[in-house]
């Protein structure tokens, strides 16, 4: 144990489902986790809609729903254009826990949490997440980058290997993990941090690219899958040893995973039904013909109405807005698995059903016209959010010829089975969701949450 011990520790492990973790514990791959879970228990936790890491982590770190923080996906449309932008920490509308704690003069450390690039100034160290572009720019303060370079830090494993060379991908995932853990232990003992958060991303990658092989017990890749988790457990053991037994601790994931039946090219479906018209040669996800398209979509399942007065060449009038949304929802719900005839879309939510701009959910009765013309962060949301049944991964495919396809991706995200293992912190007993974590963290460190922070009893996401 070390003389400098942090007051609150978070180890987040991206995309690890409750059920998988239970199985890994049961089968002996994660003995340290098993001990911890036997002492503290483990709970299921809900993620966000749409269920992607950048939205989930933005929701965690702000304690607010996307209608307030404004991060809805990895790609968004630049408001008032048909251009794409990549949302990041600089485009987020509200402060995160590291900024709030910094203002209260708490010492904070964060490493590799998605959507923390570019690193915002904090009272401590902020090392950006997997979309950080270089070691020069990955960290605040910048000098930390020199240390990272000196130990051979990897910002992220090479995702392209998942498609081209899975064996190389595993080596790369391990190298990335080893370097990350080295940095974690280096800084853990450096001073008495108030809040110390390290994020592991590789689990999401290995789940995306090897889930099917794990399930099928592939002779090479299933053992590789399990030994990656085992290695994480070894690091967890070292971390627990380095902390006093009562240090408040949260270990959790941001979403679950399940096998992919099909990647669903939703743009292609919208094209077939005459909602979207692609340009001759789509150059990017918004290469649509705005003069003809009544709607268009972004990954995953985010559908925008091409609304006159809001979009530069909108064709749907405000009067038709609600009717068009309902027609679209009905069309989406008709989509069927080509083999089994099973429905693909479980639910289509209107933006106001899942997000709220201020206060708590349901406190603002907005007319469809007000919803359509909302501004600020809430107004950036998709008009409709399609939620698939597990197994149908909603993609784009503006230039694809088929709606249903399979690629190297084997696993997809799920909403309601993230896991949470917590020690020394009081979490809500009901309907735990990732949006509910910022408040208890601040409370534990005696920092007053901002007034508009969600995650309290009346500001939670409804269950759909």
């Amino acid at each position, binding site marked *: 144990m070390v003389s400098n011990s942090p007051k609150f520790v978070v180890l987040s492990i991206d995309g690890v489902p409750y059920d998988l973790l239970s199985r890994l514990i049961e089968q002996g791959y994660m003995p340290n986790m098993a001990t911890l879970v036997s002492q503290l228990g483990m709970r299921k936790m809900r993620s966000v809609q749409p269920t992607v890491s950048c939205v989930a982590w933005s929701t965690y770190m702000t304690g607010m729903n996307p209608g307030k923080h404004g991060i809805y996906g990895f790609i968004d449309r630049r408001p008032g254009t048909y251009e794409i932008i990549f949302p990041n920490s600089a485009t987020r509308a509200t402060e995160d826990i590291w900024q709030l704690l910094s203002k209260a003069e708490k010492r904070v450390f964060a490493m590799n949490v998605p959507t923390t690039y570019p690193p915002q100034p904090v009272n401590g160290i902020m090392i950006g997440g997997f979309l950080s*572009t270089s070691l020069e720019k990955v960290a605040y303060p910048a000098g930390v980058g020199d240390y990272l370079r000196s130990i051979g830090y990897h910002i992220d494993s090479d*995702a392209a290997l998942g498609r081209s060379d899975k064996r190389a991908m595993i080596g790369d995932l391990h190298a990335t993990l080893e370097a990350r853990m080295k940095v974690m232990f280096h800084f853990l003992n450096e001073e008495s941090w108030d809040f110390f958060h390290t994020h592991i991303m590789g689990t999401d990658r290995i789940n995306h690219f090897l889930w099917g092989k794990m399930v099928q017990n592939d002779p090479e890749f299933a053992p590789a899958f399990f030994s990656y988790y085992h290695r994480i457990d070894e690091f967890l053991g070292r971390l627990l040893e380095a902390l006093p037994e009562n240090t408040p601790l949260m270990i959790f994931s941001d979403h679950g995973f399940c096998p992919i039946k099909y990647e669903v090219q939703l743009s292609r479906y919208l094209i077939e039904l005459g909602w979207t018209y692609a340009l001759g*040669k789509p*150059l990017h996800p918004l290469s649509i013909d705005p003069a003809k398209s009544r709607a268009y979509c972004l990954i995953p399942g985010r559908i925008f109405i091409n609304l006159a007065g809001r979009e530069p060449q909108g064709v749907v009038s405000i009067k038709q807005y609600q009717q068009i949304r309902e027609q679209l929802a009905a069309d989406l719900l008709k989509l069927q698995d080509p083999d089994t005839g099973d429905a693909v879309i479980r639910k289509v939510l209107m933006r106001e059903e899942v997000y709220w701009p201020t206060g708590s959910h349901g406190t603002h009765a907005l007319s469809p016209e007000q919803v359509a013309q909302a501004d600020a962060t809430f107004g950036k949301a998709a008009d409709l959010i399609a939620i698939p049944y597990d197994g149908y*991964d909603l993609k784009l495919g503006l*230039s694809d010829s088929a709606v249903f396809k399979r690629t190297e991706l084997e696993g997809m995200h799920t909403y309601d089975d993230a896991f949470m293992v917590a020690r020394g912190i009081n979490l809500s007993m009901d309907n735990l969701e990732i949006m509910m974590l910022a408040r208890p963290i601040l409370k534990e460190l005696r920092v007053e949450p901002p007034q508009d922070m969600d995650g309290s009893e009346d500001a939670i996401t409804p269950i759909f």
Partner: protein
Amino acid sequence: MDRLDELESQSIYIIREAYYHYKKLAVLWSIGKDSTTLVWLCRKAFFGKIPFHALHIDTSYKFPQMYRFRDEYSKKWDMQLVVARNEEAIAAGMGPEKKLECCTALKTQGLKLAIAKHGFEALLLGIRRDEHGIRAKERYFSPRDEQFKWNYQDQPPELWDQYKNQADEGTHIRVHPLLHWAEVDIWRYIKREQIPITELYFAKDGKRYRSIGCTTCCNPVESNAATVDDIIHELETTTTSERAGRAQDKEDTYTMQKLRALGYM
């Protein structure tokens, strides 16, 4: 006269000025879109047959498509082609593991050797002002010393088309007939004149090269632009990333590649 006619006529004027002033003149041909356009303009300036050398600095790491293109069109256009290679450095194993040293040895040193060997007084180069911030300070006629140093704080004024074209002893003059062209002008002109161009610029499997050089140090960009028209459209519609500057372009490209690999694009 439309914009392309103006650009063309200004460039041809400069090319003819250079030919008038320098006995030993060469056009530097990298096989890329800009220098191929420059070669095209040289042909036009002299009615099809270029009366001076074309110089290709061959690092030995160029794309095979570039070598094929060079050999085909140097023959077709009846060019006096000089291929210069720094054989000594190549034989000594110089390669892209050492990026800066490699460029210095194979490109800069290769060019120096060629200038010394052939005694060129002036070189025509296809650089453009919009390529890079520092090039905004370039002149149409730009003196270089023996060490190739370009003193950007001491550049002669070029007013009313009066160019400083007297080279001091031991120096050579670089002439930049395309300085006033923008990237999209080049493509519009390529389209109008139907200038042949290497296929590397056109998208294959969602990627194309926006500029080309050595295989080892060039990365394709994400693009579906498979024809000259597509490229013009792409350049016309991606003004934001152009304005955002090169580093930003690189960041966006990096982000896109990552998101594509993960299936988010």
